[in-house]
């Protein structure tokens, strides 16, 4: 089996890997930061007249929960949803509720069906995201009809965001902290 290739920019010479360990601060904080960065998408240079951009922060959270079960605690939806609510424009509390429920639901699925392939992961993410967007639209008083393109785009974008999560996951475990 081919080993995952670390981009040359991040690759550490072999001799320097001896007596090194990943920094626990980075290994723990990087996933949270990535999800929060996704939640900041309303400040990106896109101004839309209708909802089109996928909920990037939510998709990152689902990707982390599926790729590294147990990395986020079950209650991760509470602080991350709260942060998302500050920027998303949804009624306050919508993110806290739905993100918490997502974390609990995915934890249950993980215990029930621990072995899943790529397409099963994608299917689960698609179902979760579609349900999340519908409930969010309902909470904001919008109609289900207008979020169709957004749901489709979110589902298509999920594998790409999963790759980004995989890259960050490799980055966060690079051993660069000296043990000496």
């Amino acid at each position, binding site marked *: 089996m081919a080993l995952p290739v670390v981009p040359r920019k991040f690759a550490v010479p072999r001799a320097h890997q001896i007596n090194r360990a990943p920094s626990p601060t980075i290994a723990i904080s990087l996933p949270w930061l990535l999800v929060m960065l996704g939640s900041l998408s309303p*400040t990106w*240079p896109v101004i839309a007249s209708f909802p089109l951009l996928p909920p990037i922060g939510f998709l990152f959270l689902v990707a982390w929960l599926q790729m590294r079960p*147990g990395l986020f605690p079950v209650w991760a939806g509470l602080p991350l949803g709260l942060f998302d609510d500050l*920027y998303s424009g949804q009624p*306050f509390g919508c993110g*806290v509720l739905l993100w918490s429920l997502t974390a*609990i639901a995915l934890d249950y699925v993980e215990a029930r069906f621990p072995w899943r392939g790529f397409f099963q992961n994608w299917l689960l993410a698609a179902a979760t995201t579609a349900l999340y967007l519908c409930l969010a639209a309902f909470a904001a008083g919008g109609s289900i009809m207008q979020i169709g393109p957004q749901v489709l785009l979110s589902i298509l974008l999920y594998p790409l965001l999963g790759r980004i999560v995989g890259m960050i996951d490799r980055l966060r475990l690079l051993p660069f902290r000296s043990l000496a």
Partner: protein
Amino acid sequence: MTPPSNRRPGFSRRAQYSNFAAYVIAAAGALVGGLLLIVSVRDAEAFSGARGVATDATSPVATASAATRSGGQGFLDTIAGYLMSGRENARMRKELALARVQLAEAQALRDENRRLKDLAGLSLGEAKPVAAARLIGSSSSSTRRFATIDAGGERGVRVGMPVRSPLGLVGRVLETGRRSARVLLITDTESIVPVRRASDGVAAFASGRGDGRLLLRLVNLGVNPLKRGDAFVTSGSGGLYRPGTAIAVVTQITSDGAIARPLSDPAATEFIVVEPEWVETETVRELPPQPAQPVKAP
């Protein structure tokens, strides 16, 4: 290898308790979220302070990225311009010739209008804008339509003030932070603007549909007089929005009104102006006192 289950951490009591506590906190989080949601649906202003602080914190970054956005669109326009230049040029020549004539006529009308207003002693008073600002972001994935501008309470922006671009009405200020404010766009489903047809003053309400277009509902029901291409401006009734601000053009006729496209697309707008709230009684106060007419017996 199957991943280790998080649910059964072994015989350690400490691990079992902390695991149990995590699930309790998660359920409590969902409960708290539900309560917050109920409070904020009841009272939309409930958490505006927290959101104001949050948007203030990111507004410098967002301002920089807004500059990138308009630059990027200019770049695409340049490329498109090369491809379309021939046809575009011919069309614009024709339009320019027409526009010159119309400009001269409009100039004459404006002069006449000013003369008549002077005669009547009636002055609307030019609106002195409160602040000029940049649109720095919008709720991109929510079904609600908000935008963020980079001027806030420090520059005199207050809740309720109308926001417009050179092309027309954009929305009104909903929440203010110190250096940023949140704007309810006219395309939001909660936004209702009283409007009239620019040509003859047919009154209607323009409410957002949430998909970038507006729904025009006529005040007087009956035969629908609207046609495609009719331009609508704000009527100023009920206050808030200054009368005569361009807002939308009809694109599709429905049974009791029309669907219209807003003139100022927020995505293509970079700079906006915050205007003071329009007070309807202003004109009435400035009217000269009318001499009482004696009632004549028939």
